[in-house]
């Protein structure tokens, strides 16, 4: 009984994805009639068409670029701050740390409205830089929190040794603290990468021009323009979902760790 229950839920989790891939291999003619799970012939050219004609190739590269830039930015900016909050003394450090934590707790629905106004004023709207900076800010608070918690528990002996050897503060951060923080950095990387890859609304309001859009926005735009071209849409969805699923399967132990840690935060 229990097995049957678990198994049936597991099947509903997988099935829509199987159907997505299956639909992406049918043609415009057969997709509305052929309801078999395994198509009679495999039309891999849909992927080529989606990549070139549908423009998803460009959007795919954009998504890769935004995700890596934001994740690298978050790692550097948040680990510097978290290290300072944990180890260095300066006036106002508690207040500043509290400010970041408060931002995690206060929901501002519709914060995209003033962000749009701000980016317009800074002439950063419809630019990659504007989007990347906004997304770095989105991931900042939680990343600082996770990293500071880790640094607080980290033994100080190695840093003391490095200091005696004449290492500067920045040197200690780079050569000692960051390498030791690898396990928690993995959590920070994976969660921010998922978050940026899947982000929708900021990309929607920031980008007007299609060549700059990441995949998520390009997909809804494509669906709005070519409402019945399901095989290409399904190919586009597969291109979007596949990297995330692969990364997830490779890194899933860090995800489980992150969710349970994040739950303790709340």
């Amino acid at each position, binding site marked *: 009984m229990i097995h049957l229950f678990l198994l049936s839920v597991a099947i509903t989790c997988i099935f*829509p994805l199987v159907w997505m891939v299956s639909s992406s291999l049918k043609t415009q003619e057969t997709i509305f009639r052929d309801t078999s799970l395994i198509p009679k012939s495999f039309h891999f050219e849909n992927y080529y068409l989606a990549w070139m004609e549908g423009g998803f190739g460009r959007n795919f590269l954009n998504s890769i670029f935004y995700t890596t830039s934001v994740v690298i930015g978050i790692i550097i900016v948040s680990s510097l701050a978290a290290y300072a909050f944990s180890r260095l003394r300066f006036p106002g450090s508690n207040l500043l740390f509290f400010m970041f934590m408060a931002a995690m707790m*206060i929901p501002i*629905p519709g914060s995209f409205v003033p962000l749009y106004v701000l980016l317009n004023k800074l002439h950063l709207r419809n630019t990659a830089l504007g989007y990347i900076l906004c997304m770095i800010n989105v991931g900042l608070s939680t990343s600082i929190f996770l990293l500071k918690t880790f640094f607080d528990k980290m033994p100080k002996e190695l840093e003391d040794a490095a200091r005696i050897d004449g290492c500067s503060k920045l040197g200690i951060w780079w050569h000692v603290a960051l390498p030791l923080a690898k396990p928690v950095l993995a959590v920070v990387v994976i969660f921010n990468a998922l978050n940026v890859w899947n982000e929708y609304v900021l990309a929607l309001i920031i980008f007007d021009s299609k060549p700059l859009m990441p995949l998520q926005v390009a997909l809804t735009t494509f669906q709005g323009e070519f409402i019945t071209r399901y095989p290409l849409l399904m190919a586009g969805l597969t291109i979007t979902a596949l990297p995330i699923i692969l990364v*997830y399967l490779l890194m899933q132990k860090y995800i489980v760790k992150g969710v*349970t840690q994040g739950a303790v935060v709340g």
Partner: protein
Amino acid sequence: MRLKSSLENYIFVLPAVLIFVIFYVIPFIWVFQLGLYEWDGILPTKVFVGLDNFKEILTDKIWWQSMWQAGYITLIALTLQNAVAFLLAWACDREIKLKNFYRVIFFIPPVLSEVVVGLVWQWILDGNYGLLNHWLVHLGLPNLARNWLSDPNTALTTVAIVHSWKGFGWGFLIFLAGLQTIPRELYEASRVDGANAWHAFKNVTIPLMIPVAVLVAILTILGTMQAFVLIIAMTGGGPAYHTQVPVLRILASMRGSSRFGYACAQGISFGVILMAISFIQYRFSKHARQT
């Protein structure tokens, strides 16, 4: 020397603080300012209207309709989604063999984007060519087949169920982590005392899981009330406002009717409601932990 060291330390937090002030603090302040103006977002002139935007919200029927609809989706997520999540976690906690396999599978929907999930389900639920209706006809139940997403009677519930499908993995992981912290000796002890499985569940599992359940409930409410991208991908808010939710209305005020001030006022009102909900829940969870 002290001063120089302090200044040096500020360099570490400077990038984070700069980004945070520009992209969080300033917009945060602007929301409250803009909420008092009538402004189309383009012209340099803003008209100060005081609290008029907030008064207008009170009588904005579609706004309150969207609020109730978000509440309805949240209710389904709280009951159906979390019940399924808990039962699955409970089953997995007992069944050791394939636990990791199920844990991997159940978290696939949460890692997918709302756009992907929404568009795939929209295709499955399509009224004319969707797989669900096709199956219903083949199973001899053609009466049940319908335009799931364009029929006002079913659209909202359908969206809520897909939302629950996407979200239950979170609750499952947190419940499972909670269940695994319960010491096995407690179950042993209750069995020695002659309790059956149901009694052990009622007297050991349930009381120890209440704090976890409250946590999952808070996360579900805050997450679901603010969900909207899935709806954009599935129905766009239609048919005729039947799947509108507050954040979608804010987006519509901004992009559709170019009323930036009103959009900000809506954001503030909604934010206050969310804060109130999480505060009540927080008090409730403290109370539950003490008893």
